């Protein structure tokens, strides 16, 4: 049942906000359970707007996983847009879930999905709107506030605000946490004791049971447990086998158009390539594949239950899925009226052939990510693609009918020189030339997007500095000059100021929590939206805390230095990251996980080879 009185108050606001469909719930396949019939209620919170959050796969998985049990329920809540937020404050309406219009405060657990650093202040803002005290230590008699997702591999800036973080894949550990919590919440134990017990669950990081320490000069020295029995290093949870875990088949169908308005089928998790800048590549290691028989059945069920006209076969690198031909073959017979899409494709001829096969109807654009402009720099980042690979792949794309090619590059990569930037232009111009020689009639457009490297924790580039804003603007100016030579080449760039903040927060330590709070009090939230993002707000917040956003983003670390995320482990060894960092300097490639030779990242379970690596491997 929906809450009658609060529901009516919310309903009365909706004629006054833009896109009211964000707040009405009731989507096809949404689940409304009776609150009286369960013994644990979870609010799944996504700290972004509805149209972003509804595109997230993790939320879909956890939502179905909890609601199918029968003894617990899960409802969704997203960040309200600013117009809705203002009306909620004015009319004294607390943050509510979409299924039943219940205040978030009335749930037992609030679980935030942490996918992006620029969403951190949405977490604070949502706690505030829910009427839940921001700081964990001030919360007694409130829901347990937890976080999961890729940001938990360095959640230190959020440490005082959340009660615990989940490292790794949630399918097993999330129910374990909920069951443990249900067992002890009705007992006599204090919140400290409850958290202490939860810290015993593998993959759970309770930040209040750890303390960072600094030397007299304010230099970070390490993070240590403050109680006995708490593991000094928390290691992420990994599912050994994707085929035996739950996957949502009855996916919700939103009324309004969301960012990814299609059915999603996860064909693999993890990526076999070892790109040195890539955080997801480390966070989701090792690579695991679902069986094509299983996927074929799942795909049909998803389409039957949603009616979607498009099915996206997602993974970090879909062209590396080894049974693709078999899978596409079975879909072409049983899902003939459905468009398939393959995001994250590698830049080679094989990928284009695959894209050709799946995208039969409507050829919009084809997107590739060479990431760097020259073969030398691509070796530095361990992206084993030659210029000729690119020419051949894109040439085939032209022949297959694509007339809009999107290319993604990073700028500010370690060892980058101006000739690497020129390489971005030369590569794009060479593609234009290839197209001209083919003498097709239609106009071609090549759209190039560049963004500054954000050195992420747990990657081989974690010790590297981000380039300064001045360097970044100089590089963009250089590129703009070159790209202005042709109208068929378009250059776009990600806002350098936003990349700066993202870099500072991703390698941030616990001191940044005060920065988050100060910036939030100055009105910073929805920072992923350029209309709301204000660097000067953040600069002030940093300086009031005696810190500098530039120091955090632009400093380099030495290999000997303690890192604020060293007590959290992805399963990939620091020794491997150091080795890879040195190999980058030597312009040396390292093998990927599907190759004969093993790069030796240290993951104990390595499903890419279908075998257990022993620890000595």
């Amino acid at each position: 049942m929906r809450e009658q009185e609060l529901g009516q108050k919310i309903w009365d606001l909706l004629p006054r906000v833009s896109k009211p469909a964000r707040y009405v719930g009731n989507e096809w396949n949404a689940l409304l359970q009776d609150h009286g019939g369960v013994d644990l209620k979870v609010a799944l919170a996504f700290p972004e707007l509805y149209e972003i959050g509804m595109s997230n796969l993790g939320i879909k998985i956890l939502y179905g996983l909890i609601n199918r049990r029968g003894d617990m329920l899960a409802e969704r809540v997203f960040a309200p847009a600013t117009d809705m937020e203002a009306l909620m404050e004015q009319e004294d309406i607390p943050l509510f879930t979409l299924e039943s219009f219940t205040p978030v405060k009335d749930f037992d657990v609030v679980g935030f999905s942490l996918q992006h650093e620029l969403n951190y202040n949405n977490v604070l803002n949502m706690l505030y709107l829910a009427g839940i005290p921001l700081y964990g230590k001030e919360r007694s008699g409130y829901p347990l506030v937890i976080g999961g997702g890729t940001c938990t591999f360095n959640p230190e800036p959020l440490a005082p605000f959340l009660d615990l973080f989940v490292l790794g894949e949630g399918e097993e550990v999330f129910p374990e946490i909920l069951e443990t919590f249900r067992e002890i919440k009705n007992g006599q134990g204090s919140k400290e004791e409850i958290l202490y017990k939860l810290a015993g669950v593998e993959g759970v990081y309770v930040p209040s049971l750890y303390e960072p320490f600094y030397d007299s000069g304010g230099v970070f020295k390490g993070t240590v447990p403050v109680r006995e029995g708490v593991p000094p290093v928390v290691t992420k949870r990994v599912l050994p086998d994707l085929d035996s875990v739950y996957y949502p088949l009855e996916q919700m169908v939103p009324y309004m158009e969301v960012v990814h308005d299609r059915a999603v089928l996860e064909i693999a998790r993890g990526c076999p390539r070892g790109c040195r800048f890539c955080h997801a590549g480390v966070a989701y290691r090792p690579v695991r594949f679902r069986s094509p028989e299983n996927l074929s059945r799942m795909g049909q069920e998803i389409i039957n239950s949603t009616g979607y006209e498009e099915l996206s076969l997602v993974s970090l690198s879909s062209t590396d899925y080894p049974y693709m031909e078999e899978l596409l073959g079975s879909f072409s017979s049983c899902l003939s009226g459905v468009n398939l899409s393959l995001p994250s494709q590698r830049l080679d001829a094989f990928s284009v052939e695959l894209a050709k096969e799946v995208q039969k109807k409507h050829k919009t654009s084809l997107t590739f990510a060479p990431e760097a402009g020259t073969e030398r720099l691509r070796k530095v980042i361990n992206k084993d693609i030659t210029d000729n690979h690119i020419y051949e792949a894109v040439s085939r794309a032209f022949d297959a009918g694509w007339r809009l090619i999107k290319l993604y590059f990073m700028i500010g990569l370690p060892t980058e020189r101006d000739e690497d930037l020129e390489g971005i232009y030369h590569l794009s111009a060479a593609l234009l030339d290839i197209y001209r020689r083919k003498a097709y009639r239609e106009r071609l457009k090549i759209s190039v997007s560049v963004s500054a490297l954000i050195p992420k924790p747990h990657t081989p580039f974690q010790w590297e500095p981000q380039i300064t804003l001045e360097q970044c603007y100089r590089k963009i100016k250089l590129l703009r000059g070159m790209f202005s030579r042709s109208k068929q080449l378009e250059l776009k760039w990600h806002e350098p100021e936003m990349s700066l903040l993202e870099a500072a927060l991703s390698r941030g330590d616990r001191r940044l929590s005060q920065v988050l709070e100060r910036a939030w009090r100055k009105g910073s939230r929805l920072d992923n939206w350029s209309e709301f993002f204000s660097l000067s707000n953040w600069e002030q917040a940093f300086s009031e805390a005696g810190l500098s956003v530039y120091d955090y983003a632009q400093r380099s670390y030495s290999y000997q230095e303690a890192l604020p995320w060293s007590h959290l482990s992805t399963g990939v060894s620091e020794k491997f990251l150091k080795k890879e960092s040195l190999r980058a300097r030597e312009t040396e490639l390292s093998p990927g996980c599907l190759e004969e030779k093993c790069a030796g990242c240290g993951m104990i379970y390595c499903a890419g080879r279908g075998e257990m690596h022993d620890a000595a491997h």
Partner: protein
Amino acid sequence: MMQRIRFSYLRGENLKFISHLDILRFLHRAFRRADFNLVYRGKFNPQPRLDPGIPLPLGITSEKEYGEVYFYGGEETGKEFLSSIGAQLPGALMITGAEVVSLQEASLMEQIDCSRYRVYWKEESTGGELRELLERGTDKVLNAEKLTVQRRGKKKKGKRQMREVDIRPFIYSLNIEEFSRGLELVMLLQTGNRGGASPKEVMQVMEELTGEPEPANYHGIHREGLYRYDGGSLKPPPPFKVS
């Protein structure tokens, strides 16, 4: 064999904030779930031949909208159609009737030209004052020669242009009625491709003409029906009959 079915449906409270285009997308997926072999049109980006009818302004409920769908199938009757699509729709979007129509029949847009709306006020505000105000407002609206409203026009150079429209010719009648829970203003307004007015616009001009905010503080708006107005009588689009 290509079939064309015309259906009537209601849009309840739970879906009143869903836009016309979103309803179209939702219906499309519902027909796909029900395994209809829909007819598509367009080569580059094929779209289903599915029409949810005359757009209903955001925030308004309706008890009788009309839509149409084309699909390949046997000689399905309206009843069979109802039972196969029914299971794929929420209560707030219920198909209430379905009839086979010939492929030559004119479109809904051509066969519908007016809508009847009921604007209603909550019980506590139905005293003599509101009634008096509505009577005064109704007189002013009906006696006006011209009633100009601003509408969002096309974008020019990235800026949204506003255009002025006189809605007086689109107002056929206004009547104040009492119902069990309060007062209603019943409006018959022109709708469709020869121009029309929305009930919100009528309430807005009434507010301006009376200088009182109360007309705009209605509790809700409901669309009662869509018709073809041929002089004296109101008829639903064929083959539907007056109920």
